[in-house]
């Protein structure tokens, strides 16, 4: 089984057998319907496309409606492709949270919260100048030197500077599945998951 598409609901904490307080994230995952199978002959690679979250029919284009009717399912908001070497899955199949085992480890992918244009202190953890005196007056959060002068006479690629922070795809590996509630389509994973509440996340097995 490839994985699941879900929605981050929020965070809470539960107690384990030792009485330790474990922080965990609640994810509402699936049921996901298989809407397309990519094959070696037709697409050059094999994968399954899963869909999640109901959408009103009137908000869909005719092309998308045709895509969903091929799989004999209702329109969905989110479509994600999962790599799958050999598949025993058929078009229109439903994948639910019961594919996850309690205690196993999963990878969760999400879009991190956007922080806007941030300077080097917040974005890369630079120390700044940390001195308001000794000749400093307007550079407390500046990066300092970004390279030498006439040689190499340019700034190296990849030099860490200010810029957009967050709102990027972030993958967190080895999150333990603490609880699976199949009747509610809920998974509890240990620790934090990237993104805001109600944002889409991908759970990879």
């Amino acid at each position, binding site marked *: 089984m490839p994985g699941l598409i879900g929605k981050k*609901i*929020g*965070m*809470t*904490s*539960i*107690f384990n057998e*030792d*009485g330790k*307080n474990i922080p965990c994230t*609640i994810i*509402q995952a699936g049921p996901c319907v298989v809407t397309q199978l990519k094959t070696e002959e037709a697409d050059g690679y094999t994968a399954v496309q899963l869909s999640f979250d109901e959408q009103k029919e009137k908000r869909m284009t005719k092309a998308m409606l045709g895509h969903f009717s091929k799989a004999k399912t209702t329109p969905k908001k989110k479509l994600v492709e999962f790599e799958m070497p050999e598949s025993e899955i058929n078009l229109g199949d439903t994948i639910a949270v019961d594919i996850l085992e309690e205690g196993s480890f999963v990878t969760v992918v999400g879009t991190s919260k956007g922080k806007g244009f941030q300077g080097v202190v917040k974005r890369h953890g630079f120390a700044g100048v940390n001195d308001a005196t000794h000749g400093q007056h307007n550079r407390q959060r500046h990066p300092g030197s970004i390279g030498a002068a006439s040689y190499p006479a340019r700034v190296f690629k990849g030099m860490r500077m200010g810029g957009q922070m967050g709102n990027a795809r972030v993958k967190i590996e080895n999150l333990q599945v603490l*609880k699976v*509630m199949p009747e*509610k389509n*809920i998974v*509890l994973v240990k620790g934090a998951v990237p993104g805001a509440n109600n944002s889409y996340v991908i759970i990879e097995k």
Partner: protein
Amino acid sequence: MNLVDSISKEVSTMNQFPEFSSGDTITVYYAIKEGDKQRTQHFKGVVLQRKGSGTTETFTIRKMSGGIGVERIFPVNSPVLEKIEVNKRGKVRRSRIFYLRELTGKKARIKEIRK
């Protein structure tokens, strides 16, 4: 009730303790694990605050131990907690009485509510 609260309730057990609030003097009995043995310890002090709500609520209690202030934070629904005794109901005007940290001796007294 939102989804986070309802699921938190489902996956955790709520402890049944007598009601207490900031200013009260309480004794908390909690289990301590030493290797494979278990014993009960208690901590008696003044409740400084109750924080949070639902299954993840916590409370802070403070006592003076040999002239040094000691504070402990317990989750209300921790399975480690065995019993809570309310020793004294204190009369305080606010729900978080951090001003108590700066006070010692006679000034650190809290008036008791008597019925």
